[in-house]
Structure formats: C-alpha cells, structure tokens
C-alpha cells in the first residue's frame, strides 16, 4: 500500500501541489492556502465592524447583525455556496468562476463566526477598562479603537488561528462547484487512476492533517503565551 502511495505521489505531486499550473489554472494545495488566506484577510476587518455593531448600545445596529449571525450559523455552508453561485452573477451581471464564488461564500460565512469571536474578546475584558478610559476623557470610538480592540484582538489570536483552520477545512467544499483546490485535484487524480481510491484520499487526508495539525500547535503556543502574559499583568496589578 505504501509503495502505491509513493508511486502516486511521485507521479502526481505537481497536481496535488499546484494543480495544472502552468498549463492550466492554478490549483491544488497552493490554491487552497491562497483561498483560505484571502477569505480570512477579507472577512476579518468585516467581522470587527460587525462585532462593534453587535456590542453597540443602539438597537438599530445591534439587531440586524444579530439576525445576520444567527442566519449564517443556522444554514449549512453548501446552501450559502449555492446562493452565492446564482445570486452574485445575477447581481453583478456577469459570470464568476468557482474560486471567486468560494471566496465570496467563505467571506460571508466566516464574517459571522469571526464576529462572534471578536465579540467574545470584547465582552471578556473587565468593565474597568471602559470606565477608566471614559473617565480619562476618551470618547466611545477612541475607547473602542485605542483601548478595547487592541486587547480584545490580541486575546483572540488563538481563536482566530483555529478559525483559519476551519476555513482551510471549508475550502474543501469548493470541490462541489469545481473550484480549483486540493480536494478537486485529488478527485482529478482519482479519476485518472480509477483503481486506487484509498491511496489517493489517504494522501489528501494526510496533507490536510499535517497542515491543520501544525496550525493547531501554533494556536496552542499563542494560548500559553497569552495566558502567561495575563498572569504577569495580574501580578503587577495586585
């Protein structure tokens, strides 16, 4: 079995890694990573805005975002993929490819989840932070941007990394709408070989595992570091 795995890898490693590039579109593992990173980079600022609205004292900002978060958390990602797949082209008037569809979907879906993470970070800060900064004469926005957000975002780094892992795992759904990424590449390999499905999907699973396991370790390292820093500052405070 392992001989087979090595055979497949030596023959098809390029397809797994970069898809048909340079003879066709970029794909494979590289595209999975590009897709996941772009989704996080675009969704993150959006989610900070949503989180500010979600913790806002004004219902007119708070309620729509709350509804948005519950709707996004309540429907499967595949459903949102299909909505994007036919709504976005009819909104902008031209067809979009699998990659763009998947990117839009992930941004929409993750904005809700990231919003909850940032909100959790904001709400776990002690109330004294707001009170002190308001007492020092900072307004709502200055309190938010100079006092609350820096601390909340730093504390939520581990959750952000685990959300990045989720995004990487979610990119695999791109296969359903023929977006070029690693699961799609593995299916191409499987369709060419036909007789070795176990080996092909085994390679796919192991690649995802190595990628996500590494990131999990990184998240845990950050968690320990933040924990230490918090304990240190507590000692100073007492």
């Amino acid at each position: 079995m392992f001989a087979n795995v090595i055979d497949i890898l030596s023959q098809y490693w390029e397809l797994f890694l970069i898809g048909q590039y340079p003879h066709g579109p970029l794909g494979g593992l590289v595209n999975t990573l590009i897709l996941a990173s772009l989704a996080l980079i675009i969704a993150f600022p959006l989610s900070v805005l949503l989180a500010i609205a979600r913790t806002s004292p004004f219902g007119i900002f708070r309620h729509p975002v709350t509804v948005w978060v519950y709707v996004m958390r309540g429907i499967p990602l595949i459903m949102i993929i299909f909505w994007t797949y036919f709504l976005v082209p009819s909104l902008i008037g031209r067809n979009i490819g699998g990659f763009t569809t998947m990117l839009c979907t992930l941004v929409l879906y993750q904005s809700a989840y990231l919003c909850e993470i940032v909100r959790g970070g904001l709400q776990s800060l002690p109330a004294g932070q707001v009170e002190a900064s308001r007492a020092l004469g900072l307004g709502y926005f200055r309190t938010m941007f100079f006092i609350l957000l820096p601390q909340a975002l730093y504390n939520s780094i581990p959750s952000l990394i685990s959300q990045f892992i989720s995004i990487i795992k979610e990119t695999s759904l791109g296969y359903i709408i023929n977006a070029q990424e690693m699961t799609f590449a593995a299916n191409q390999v499987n369709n060419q070989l036909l007789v070795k499905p176990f080996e092909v999907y085994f390679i796919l699973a192991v690649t995802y595992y190595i990628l996500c396991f590494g990131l999990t370790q990184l998240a845990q390292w950050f968690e320990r570091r933040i924990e230490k820093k918090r304990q240190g500052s507590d000692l100073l405070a007492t």
Partner: protein
Amino acid sequence: MSQFTQGLEKVLQGDYLDIIIRGIKMTLELAALSWVLAMVIALSLVVIRLTNNKVAVALVAAYVSYHRNIPTLVQLMLWYFGISSLFPFELQMWLVDQNAEFIFAAVALGLCQAAYFSEDIRSGMRAISSGQTEASRALGFGYLRSMYYIILPQGIRNSLPSLINHTVLLFKNTSLAMAIGVVELTYATREVENYTFLTFQSYLVATLVYLFFSLLLMFAGALFAKKLNKVYAR
C-alpha cells in the same frame, strides 16, 4: 412578485413537495443516527481517557486529533470511495444493496462528531473541582454513584453549550452527504431546481427548513441549559 409566489406554490406542490419532504426525512434520519453513534463513541472515549492508561490516552488523543484536523467532506470521501474499496467484494455488494451512501455518511459523520463531543464532555468534566469527588466519596458514595449523582450532572451542565453548538454543526454537516449521493435535503433541492428551474424558490425553501431546525436546536438547548441551571442552583 406574483411570479415569485407562483413559483413558490409550484415548488411546494405535488411531486416537488414529495421530493423535498423525503429529503427532510433523510436529513433528520441521518442527523439522528449519526448523533447517537457520535454520543456513544464520545462517552466511550471519555471513559477510556479517564483510565489514565498511557497507551489508551494516546490512542484517544490521536483519534480526536485525526478527526478534528481533516475536513469532514474528505472524511466522507475517504470512507465512501477509499475505505469501502478495501472491503471484501461480498461485503461491498451487500452494502450497495443496503443503501451504502447512507451507511457511510452516518458512520463518517458520527465518527467525526464523536471527536468534538468527547472533547466537549471532557472539558466540562475537567472544570469540576476535585473536591467534589473527594467530598462525595467521603460521604460514602461509591465510584459509580458519585459519578452518576455528583460528577456527571455537573459535567453535562458545564459542557451543554458546546454540545449544543456541535449538535447544530452535525445537523448542518449532514448536507455534505450530498457529495457522495445521499438524497437528503440539499440533494433533493438540487433535483427540484433541475426540474423546475425555480432556483430562488427552491433554495429559499431549503434554507428556511435548515434555519428552522438549527434555531429550534439552539433554542431548545438554551431552554434546557436554563432548566438545568435552576435545578442545580442550590
């Protein structure tokens, strides 16, 4: 607007409605079966981990890490396309007769979600101070009785919020089974859309159904947690 409602009526009538209802049934069956499977495996994993046997603990950790770091869709495909091809030929044929897609989907989803459930329960149990066990043992409760009356009720209460979140996740993940050909709600919706070309209306119905059940789960979970808190808040 009237065109829209006409389309909606068409989707919600006759054969198309039948397809959708069969899809909902399949989704619920799949969710229920894999939930039970996941819970049974998760509880066994927790118990194995409590034994403090080094090899057993390492195996459980490996199980959890494997299932949490690989996309659920890839796990489904690995089971359905990969692992099934290693089975003896007679077993493969038998499975095909028994609706193989459904069985593999339930197994893959159940095994995957078991990893999440076991972590939820374990972290809930870990939050209970060891004084609770010591006190209940000092009062004369045996291991099983202190587990059943003292530790588990508190542990379940602690882990309830994340158990509910992951139950909702499990329910949503049943939609992935369409990729291996299980005719659940998402697959059924695609069928209706292919027949009627009423894309917007078909997806709207499916989305509302998913949303209804997810919100129901979240709401019921919150209610249950509130009730538990009241019972044990003494």
